[in-house]
C-alpha cells in the first residue's frame, strides 16, 4: 500500500537510500545466483557435448569394426587366415586386429615356383595390376601379404608386403597348391597413450592409409570364440577352422570431465565364405571285406577296446541243444601275423542272443556277458578273461541261475553305474543286475525290474553321452528310446527319442564317429542300416539311410561277376556262400570301426569297411559378387582349388 501510495503520488516522495541499497543488494544476490546457474548449465552443456561426440564416435567405430568383420574372408575361401589377431609384423594381442578379404574375387593358382622379385606364372584372366596387394597361400593355409611389382598378363612379379631380407616367409610352388588372391587388408589398432591415458583407435586400410576413428579409447579388446561359444586362444586364431564369432569390447572416457569410463561391446558371427565339393562317390559306402561262413546262428560281434581280436557269438546248428561258441579272429591281419581263427565252446550256454563286454576300468573289465534265450527262463553267463587277459579256451565260464528277466532278452548293456541292464521282451520291461565290488568272483544280485514298457524292447547300447538307448517295436513300427542317467547315476524313466522307418531289428554304436546305427526292416521288406546322428537324437533330423541290403546285393552282382573275387571265410571251407540273402538279424561294430551284419538263416556274417570320407578329394569353391556400375546386373566371380595336395 505504501509503494502504491508513492507511485500514486507521482513519485514526488522518491526512495530512501536504504531502500535503494536494499534493492541493489537483492538484485546482486539474484544476479550472482543466476550467473552461478548459468555456469553450471554451461559446464553441463560442454560435458554433454563431449559425451555425445565421444559416444557417437565410439559407437560409429564399433559399427565400422562390425561391418568390416561381416565382410571378412569374402572371396578368399577356406585356407587363408582372414582374421589375424595382430597388426602387421607384431605379436598376437587382444588389442589389434587385421581383417582380410578379396572383394573383387581375383585369384589364380601359381604356375611356377615363387621367388621374390622374379616373374611367376599365373592365370592370365586373373587381372592383377601393378601395385595391387595380394595374399599368397598354399594347401597348408595361413597367408602372406605381397605386392605386385610387375604385371604382364600371364605372369607377375611379387614382393613381400612386410619387407624382409629373407624374402617370403613361406614356400609357394604349384606342388604345394600355391594360390595368389586379391587382398584387401584392414587393420585396427590403438595409438600410443596420451598423458591422460587415452588412446586413438586407428583404422588402417592397406593401400589407402590410416585414419582415426575415435580418440578417447581406454582399451580395445577382441575375443575369439568357436561355434560352441568357447574361447579360442589368440595363438590359434590364425590357424583354427573353428572360429565362429568375434566379440569386440571398447572402453572409452567420454569428454574431458567424464567421471566414469563407458563400455560398448558386441559380438559378430562370421559368415560362411566358401563351399566344399567332395569328389568321392559315397553311394558305395560299405565295402565288403570278409565273409564269415559257416557260422551257425550268429547272434552278434564284439571286441574289447585295445584288443586285436574280435569274436562272433554263435549257437550250434540246433540252438536249444547244441552248445554255443565264440568264433575269434584277428580284426586286421598284420604282415607275418601267425594268428589263426579259433572257436571257444561254451558248453553250458544254449541259444545265446546278446553279448556285451564288462565296463573297462572296473572289476568286470575283460569279462564277456552273454544272455541266452529261454521261453520263460533265460540265463546270463559270464566268460572271464584268462591269465593273459584275453578270452580263450582257458577262460572260466559261469552261468548264473536262470531268471525270468533274461527270458527272450532283446539286448543287454552296461550302464553308467556299471550295472547290467536287460531289455526283456517277454516281460516288457527293463531289468537291472547289480554286481558287487568283487567283480569276477561274485554272482550278480537278483534282477530288479526298473521300468515297465508297452511294446517289445530290443537291442540296448550305451551312447557316447553315457545314456542307454534301446529299440522298441509296436507291431511293425520301430522307434528309438533313451534311458538317461541323472547326476547320481540313477536311471530315469525311458523316453521315446524318435520313430524309425520300419521294424527295428538291431542297434550298435560306431566307435569311430560315436553315432548309433540301427538296422530296420522297412515296409518293402528291405533291410536298411540307418545312421542315427546327433541331430536325430535331438529330434531335429531324419535318420540317414546308409545301406540297403537289396541295393547292395544288386550292386554286388553287377560289380563282382566272378564269385571268386569275393573274399571268403574260414580256411579250408571250399564252398563259396551264397550272398543271395533275404534278411539280416544283427548289426555290430568292432573296436576298429568295422561293421558286421549277420544272417542266421544263411549261417554267415559279413564284415564291411565303412567308406568314411577321406577328405583327400575335396575341392574348395569360393565366390563373390562384383557390381559393375549403376543399372548393370552384378556378376559372380568364383575360384576353386584343390584342398589337399599329394
Amino acid at each position, binding site marked *: 500500500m505504501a509503494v502504491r501510495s508513492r*507511485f500514486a503520488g507521482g513519485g514526488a516522495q522518491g526512495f530512501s537510500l536504504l531502500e535503494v541499497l536494499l534493492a541493489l543488494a537483492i538484485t546482486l544476490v539474484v544476479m550472482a545466483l543466476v550467473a552461478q546457474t548459468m555456469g553450471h548449465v554451461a559446464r553441463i552443456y560442454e560435458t554433454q557435448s563431449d559425451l555425445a561426440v565421444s559416444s557417437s564416435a565410439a559407437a560409429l567405430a564399433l559399427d565400422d569394426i562390425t561391418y568390416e568383420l561381416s565382410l571378412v574372408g569374402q572371396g578368399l575361401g577356406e585356407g587363408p587366415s582372414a582374421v589375424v589377431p595382430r597388426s602387421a609384423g607384431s605379436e598376437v594381442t587382444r588389442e589389434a586386429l587385421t581383417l582380410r578379404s578379396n572383394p573383387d574375387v581375383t585369384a589364380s593358382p601359381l604356375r611356377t615356383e615363387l621367388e621374390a622379385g622374379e616373374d611367376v606364372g599365373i592365370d592370365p584372366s586373373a587381372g592383377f595390376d601393378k601395385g595391387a596387394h595380394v595374399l599368397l597361400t598354399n594347401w597348408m593355409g595361413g597367408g602372406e601379404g605381397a605386392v605386385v611389382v610387375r604385371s604382364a598378363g600371364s605372369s607377375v612379379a611379387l614382393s613381400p608386403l612386410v619387407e624382409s631380407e629373407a624374402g617370403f616367409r613361406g614356400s609357394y610352388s604349384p606342388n604345394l597348391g600355391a594360390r595368389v588372391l586379391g587382398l584387401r587388408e584392414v587393420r585396427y589398432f590403438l595409438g600410443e597413450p596420451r598423458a591422460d591415458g587415452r588412446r586413438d583407435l586407428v583404422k588402417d586400410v592397406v593401400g589407402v592409409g590410416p585414419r582415426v576413428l575415435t580418440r578417447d579409447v581406454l582399451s580395445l579388446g577382441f575375443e575369439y570364440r568357436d561355434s560352441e561359444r568357447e574361447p579360442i586362444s589368440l595363438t590359434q586364431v590364425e590357424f583354427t577352422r573353428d572360429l565362429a564369432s568375434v566379440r569386440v569390447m571398447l572402453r572409452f572416457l567420454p569428454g574431458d570431465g567424464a567421471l566414469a569410463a563407458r563400455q560398448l561391446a558386441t559380438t559378430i558371427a562370421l559368415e560362411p565364405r566358401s563351399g566344399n565339393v567332395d569328389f568321392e562317390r559315397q553311394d558305395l559306402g560299405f565295402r565288403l571285406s570278409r565273409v564269415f561262413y559257416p557260422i551257425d546262428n550268429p547272434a552278434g560281434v564284439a571286441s574289447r577296446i585295445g584288443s586285436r581280436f574280435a569274436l562272433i557269438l554263435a549257437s550250434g546248428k540246433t540252438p536249444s541243444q547244441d552248445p554255443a561258441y565264440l568264433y575269434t579272429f584277428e580284426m586286421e591281419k598284420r604282415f607275418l601275423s601267425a594268428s589263426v581263427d579259433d572257436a571257444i565252446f561254451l558248453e553250458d550256454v544254449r541259444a545265446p542272443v546278446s553279448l556285451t563286454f564288462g565296463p573297462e576300468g572296473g572289476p568286470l573289465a575283460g569279462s564277456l556277458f552273454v544272455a541266452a534265450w529261454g521261453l520263460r527262463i533265460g540265463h546270463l553267463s559270464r566268460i572271464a578273461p584268462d591269465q593273459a587277459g584275453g578270452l580263450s579256451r582257458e577262460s572260466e565260464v559261469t552261468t548264473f541261475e536262470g531268471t525270468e528277466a533274461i527270458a527272450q532278452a532283446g539286448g543287454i548293456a552296461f550302464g553308467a553305474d556299471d550295472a547290467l541292464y536287460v531289455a526283456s521282451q517277454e516281460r516288457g520291461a527293463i531289468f537291472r543286475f547289480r554286481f558287487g565290488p568283487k567283480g569276477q568272483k561274485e554272482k550278480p544280485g537278483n534282477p530288479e525290474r526298473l521300468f515297465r514298457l508297452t511294446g517289445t524292447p530290443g537291442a540296448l547300447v550305451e551312447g557316447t553321452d553315457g545314456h542307454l538307448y534301446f529299440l522298441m517295436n509296436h507291431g511293425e513300427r520301430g522307434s528309438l528310446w533313451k534311458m538317461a542317467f541323472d547326476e547320481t547315476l540313477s536311471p530315469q524313466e525311458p523316453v521315446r527319442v524318435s520313430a524309425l522307418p520300419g521294424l527295428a531289428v538291431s542297434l550298435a554304436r560306431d566307435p569311430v564317429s560315436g553315432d548309433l546305427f540301427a538296422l530296420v526292416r522297412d515296409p518293402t521288406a528291405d533291410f536298411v542300416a540307418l545312421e542315427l546322428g546327433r541331430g536325430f537324437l535331438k529330434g531335429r533330423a531324419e535318420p540317414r539311410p546308409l545301406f540297403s541290403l537289396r541295393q547292395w546285393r544288386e550292386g554286388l552282382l553287377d560289380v563282382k561277376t566272378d564269385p571268386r573275387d569275393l573274399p571268403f571265410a574260414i580256411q579250408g571251407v571250399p564252398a563259396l556262400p551264397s550272398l543271395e540273402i533275404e534278411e539280416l538279424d544283427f548289426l555290430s561294430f568292432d573296436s576298429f570301426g568295422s561293421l558286421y551284419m549277420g544272417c542266421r538263416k544263411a549261417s554267415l556274417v559279413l564284415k564291411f569297411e565303412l567308406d568314411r570320407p577321406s577328405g583327400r578329394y575335396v575341392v574348395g569353391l569360393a565366390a563373390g559378387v562384383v557390381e559393375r556400375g549403376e543399372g548393370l546386373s552384378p556378376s559372380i566371380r568364383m575360384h576353386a582349388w584343390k584342398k589337399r595336395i599329394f
Partner: protein
Amino acid sequence: MEKKNLLSREEGAALVTVLVAIIVLLPPTILLASLALRWQRQSIDFRDRIAQELAAEGVFEQARARLSGSGIDLAPNEGTTFVPRDIDGLDSGVRVSRAEDVVLALDGRLLEGLAATSVDLNATGTDAEGRVVYQFRKVEIYLVEIDVSRRASLPPVKLYGVLAKLPDGSLQTLGLTRRR
C-alpha cells in the same frame, strides 16, 4: 477493474526482461536441442540399419530354404522374384537368378562356358584303396540379390549371396557381400 498506475518509463519493462531472457537462453537451448536431436537421429539410424541388415539376412535364409526345397525351380540364366514373409515396416526386394552351371575338375580347376559342357560328368577313377572318385562335378550357381529399405532418408542395405547346389542336392553358401 483496477486501474494500472505505472511510471511512463517503466512501461514494457516486463517485456524487455522476457526478451532479454529469451535472447540469452535461446542459443544454448537451440544448441542443446540440436545436439540431442542429432544424437537421437544417429541412434535411430543405427538401430534401423541394424534392423535392415538383420532383415536382409532373414530374407536370404528364406531364399535359401526355397532353393533347397522345391519353391524355386530355375534353368540356367533364368531369374525370379518373390515376396518375402512379413518383415515389419521394411520394404524388401528379392531376386534369385541362376547363373551358368560350372564344372569343377578333380585337380581344382574351374571350368565355365564351353569347357564345362565338353566333359564327361560320369567319368570316375579308383584309387589304391578302392575309393571311387569322380573326375568332374557339376555345380549349379545361384545369385540372391536382396534390397531392404526402411525410409527414404536412410540408404538401403543390399545383400548379395552366392549359393551352390551340389550334385547331391545340398546347398552351400559360397559368399555373402553386403553394401550399405
